[in-house]
């Protein structure tokens, strides 16, 4: 009797706050050339979560309605953000407004320290995360790779952490892989999503190979020459990176070692060595 042929297992699902998500890609909805391209790109990305925001509505405006219709047609979960908030108060109020208008208690929490780097204000972030978690929010904080801040965010009630790869919109990839590896090793059981700074599918694959649970990106797809094709490229890269992580990467060596067996090599003479 023949042994069954080994088959590649499907990659495991991502679970955030008890919700199982088929895709490990979270994608932003901003900066696309048109609503049609946005919709096609989200579909091509196979993302199960899209990020959204709140902005001022003008008198007699219907911008919000139109956007909600567009998003509803995508059939995906929405993750509102607090982008642009610089204080705890702004972020908390924005989260509360988002919960009401989007009908979700999930919030991508951003508290920005300064406009040049868009670096998280980690002190405000921890405080806002604590307030929002106590108010029933499921907080996904945009943070740095700092381990003590991560510990504080978990203590504040966060069950997912989203460290930056590089500053928002820079497309530089993983600026500090060593620190991110440390974070992954230090929090083996916490879902960690790389949020921001991803510029190329190879960056996303690298993050997934390192064992990160997902990737959140926007500009790399929206500003690509062909956003729909790029969305698909990211979907494949993330799947490949995750499969590689689950399969287990080989260790590295300093010196070469032949992959073809040495034994039985033709013309091989011991005196050649």
């Amino acid at each position, binding site marked *: 009797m023949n042994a069954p042929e080994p088959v590649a297992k499907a990659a495991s699902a991502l679970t955030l706050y008890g919700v199982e998500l088929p895709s490990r890609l979270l994608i932003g909805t901003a900066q696309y050339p048109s609503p049609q391209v946005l919709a096609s790109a989200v579909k091509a990305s196979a993302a199960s979560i899209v990020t959204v925001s709140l*902005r*001022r509505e003008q008198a007699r405006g219907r911008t919000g*309605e139109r956007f909600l219709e567009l*998003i509803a047609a995508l059939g995906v979960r929405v993750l509102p953000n607090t982008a642009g908030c610089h204080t705890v108060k702004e972020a908390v109020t924005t989260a509360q*407004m988002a919960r009401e208008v989007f009908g979700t208690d999930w919030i991508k929490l951003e508290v920005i320290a300064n406009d040049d780097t868009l670096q998280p204000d980690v002190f405000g972030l921890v405080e806002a995360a604590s307030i929002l978690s106590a108010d029933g929010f499921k907080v996904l904080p945009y943070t740095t790779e700092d381990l003590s801040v991560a510990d504080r965010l978990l203590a504040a009630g966060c069950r997912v952490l989203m460290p930056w790869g590089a500053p928002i919109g820079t497309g530089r990839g993983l600026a500090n892989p060593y620190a991110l590896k440390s974070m992954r090793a230090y929090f083996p059981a916490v879902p960690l999503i790389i949020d921001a700074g991803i510029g190329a599918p190879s960056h996303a694959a690298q993050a997934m190979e390192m064992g990160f649970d997902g990737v959140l990106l926007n500009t790399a797809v929206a500003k690509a020459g062909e956003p729909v094709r790029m969305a698909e490229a990211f979907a494949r890269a993330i799947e490949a990176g995750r499969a590689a992580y689950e399969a287990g990467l080989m260790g590295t060596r300093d010196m070469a070692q032949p992959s073809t067996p040495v034994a039985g090599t033709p013309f091989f003479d011991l005196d050649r060595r």
Partner: protein
Amino acid sequence: MTATTCAPDTHAIIVNGESVVTAAATLEALVAERGLAGASIATARNGDFVPAAARAATAIAPGDRIEIVSPRHGG
């Protein structure tokens, strides 16, 4: 325009960062005055969230800072 030049029963307030003179006595009336009754919006008064159900009971006072926001693209 400053509060002193307002007609009777109007207030000078700030809506979405802009100076506005309104006759609305409540946040619900202000939303309606701006043609946004029933729209997919959320509101805040002086930095605090005001749920939709509380707008009718939220009085508008001179100098109030009101935010009226709606869903938009985001990253």
